[in-house]
């Protein structure tokens, strides 16, 4: 039995005065505090959330409708700029940074009556697959507190799985929404590249960063996407949206789905493999046409990603220089000394590691061999995905090669940690939408099933996901 109704029903209850925004916020704050041992949350917006709840309840009394998310509490990953507590991206270098404006996604949610109640933990600057790279603390898996929740949106995923709020926002640069959703046992949706404005979200790798919802149902993810998607004058990379993501229809059993062969072979944990295969069998038994498909070079997506992503990180993190915001070393005598000391003392180890890799692959003499070659292989991957989507409507496979691993298990080996992204990064390199759906609800450690569609087919993907979710539960 779920603690929360679906989001549309919660908002309806507030608009019809059956419940109040205040009671929703109080319930959410209580659950956040009751689950403190999981360390999913960096800051709680208790006062501003209660104040907003009062305003929404007042509005309902006078105007009767406070929006499609009236009085719905939500949690934002702490790399979203939100008024109130500091926005840290779980990094020491941003401690004390207080947002002077809000992310467009937050503004859009608030304009429909949603209330941000807390900011969630992440790997610092979203660099990681476990939240162990948070400069503050490690979040624990909601199903087993000796294991990681996944990452980098691990705090958001754990919070939603623990039902601290009906939904959370995350960011996905190489799998950072889908992989923690898979590990923690909730829905994680990565939209098409450019569909959701990134204005006011701390940049990691700009050619792949996207924003998306973590929820406990596909229907809820679709509603949140419907509100945050669309062009934004403050983010010139935003694309045209489809008219409606919420009204999903029911025609997806007539579509052809391709099971990605390369994801089902070596390196896939036996338990995950068995779970995905049994999900495929269930779907086939329910009338879905599922065929094997090969994307021959899909495995190269990881190497491509770990060149392009650190290159973009080294550029995006150049702004943390001790002069404009965040930590500044106050004993420096020259500006050069101030840059080096502020960054050296302010950044954690993983940010430094990625800045150095990025600087290396972009430096003169290595640029063509690494960065340019990765951009060319990226074209090859795009072509192979286009070829696959000429044969099937959707792709299906695992989200990650394993279920949640033990805290500390991979921290001594950064390359091993990077390999956690092997089944999620391709969607980012190609820019297509993808979703993680719990495939073994209530049976041991959570395992996610991944579905992907061609670029800008978010509505079609959500429609399929909604019917797949019904078959699997």
């Amino acid at each position, binding site marked *: 039995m779920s603690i929360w109704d679906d989001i549309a029903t919660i908002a309806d209850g507030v608009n019809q005065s059956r419940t109040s925004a205040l009671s929703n916020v109080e319930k959410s704050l209580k659950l956040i505090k009751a689950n403190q041992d999981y360390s999913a949350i960096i800051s709680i917006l208790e006062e501003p959330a209660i104040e907003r709840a009062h305003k929404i309840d007042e509005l309902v009394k006078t105007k009767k409708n406070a929006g499609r998310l009236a009085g719905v509490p939500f949690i934002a990953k702490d790399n979203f700029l939100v008024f109130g507590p500091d926005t840290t991206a779980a990094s020491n270098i941003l401690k*004390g940074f*207080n947002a*002077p*404006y809000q992310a467009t996604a937050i503004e859009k949610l608030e304009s429909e009556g949603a209330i941000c109640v807390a900011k969630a933990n992440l790997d610092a600057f979203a660099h990681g697959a476990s939240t162990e790279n948070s400069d503050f603390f490690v979040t624990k898996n909601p199903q087993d507190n000796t294991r990681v929740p996944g990452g980098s949106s691990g705090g958001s995923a754990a919070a939603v799985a623990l039902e601290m709020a009906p939904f959370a926002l995350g960011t996905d640069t190489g799998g950072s929404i889908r992989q923690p959703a898979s590990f923690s046992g909730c829905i994680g949706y990565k939209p098409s590249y*450019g569909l959701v404005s990134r204005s006011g979200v701390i940049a990691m790798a700009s*050619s792949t960063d996207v924003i998306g919802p973590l929820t406990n149902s596909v229907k809820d993810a679709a509603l949140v996407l419907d509100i945050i998607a669309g062009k934004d*004058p403050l983010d*010139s*990379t935003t*694309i045209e949206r489809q008219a409606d993501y919420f009204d999903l229809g029911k025609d997806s059993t007539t579509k052809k789905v391709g099971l990605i062969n390369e994801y089902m072979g070596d390196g896939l944990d036996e338990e995950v493999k068995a779970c995905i295969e049994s999900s495929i069998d269930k779907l086939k038994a329910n009338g879905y046409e599922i065929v094997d498909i090969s994307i021959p*070079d899909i495995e*190269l997506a990881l*190497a*491509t990603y*770990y*060149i392009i992503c650190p290159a973009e990180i*080294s550029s995006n993190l*150049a702004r943390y*220089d*001790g*002069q*404009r*915001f965040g930590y*500044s070393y106050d004993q420096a*005598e*020259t*500006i*050069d000394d*101030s*840059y*080096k*000391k502020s*960054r*050296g*003392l302010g*950044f954690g*180890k993983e940010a*430094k*590691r990625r*800045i*150095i890799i990025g*600087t*290396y692959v972009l430096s003169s003499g290595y640029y063509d*061999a*690494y960065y*340019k*070659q*990765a*951009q*060319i*292989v*990226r*074209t*090859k991957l795009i*072509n192979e995905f286009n070829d696959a989507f000429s044969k099937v409507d959707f792709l299906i496979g695992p989200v990650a090669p394993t279920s949640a691993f033990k805290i500390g298990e991979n921290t001594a080996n*950064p*390359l091993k940690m*990077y390999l956690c992204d092997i089944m999620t990064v391709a969607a980012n390199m*190609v*820019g297509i939408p993808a979703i993680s759906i719990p495939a073994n609800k209530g049976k041991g450690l959570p395992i996610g099933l991944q579905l992907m569609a061609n670029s800008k087919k978010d509505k079609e993907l959500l429609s399929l996901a909604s019917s797949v979710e019904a078959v699997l539960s």
Partner: protein
Amino acid sequence: MAQLSREDLLKLANLARLDLSEAEISEFAAEISEILSYVEKLSSVDTGDLTPTNQVSGLINVSREDEVLDYGYEPLDLLKNVPEVEDNQLRVKRMIG
């Protein structure tokens, strides 16, 4: 196989304006060499006459009118996180030796 030396790392750290501790230098030399060896698998990929992909939005030349838009912020609101402000400007440390 790429094998980063201590000198390579110091050079990269200087390019990135990033102080590294001695412990980080020795740790990174091994770890980053291993990561570079992994990504070097791309060098043997046959890419024919494919051209590089810079971005995947499908957008080309996004422009807007060159006009001042008022977002309602005061300069000091936007400068509130700056370590040192003087006359609405950032004050930085000495730039020349």
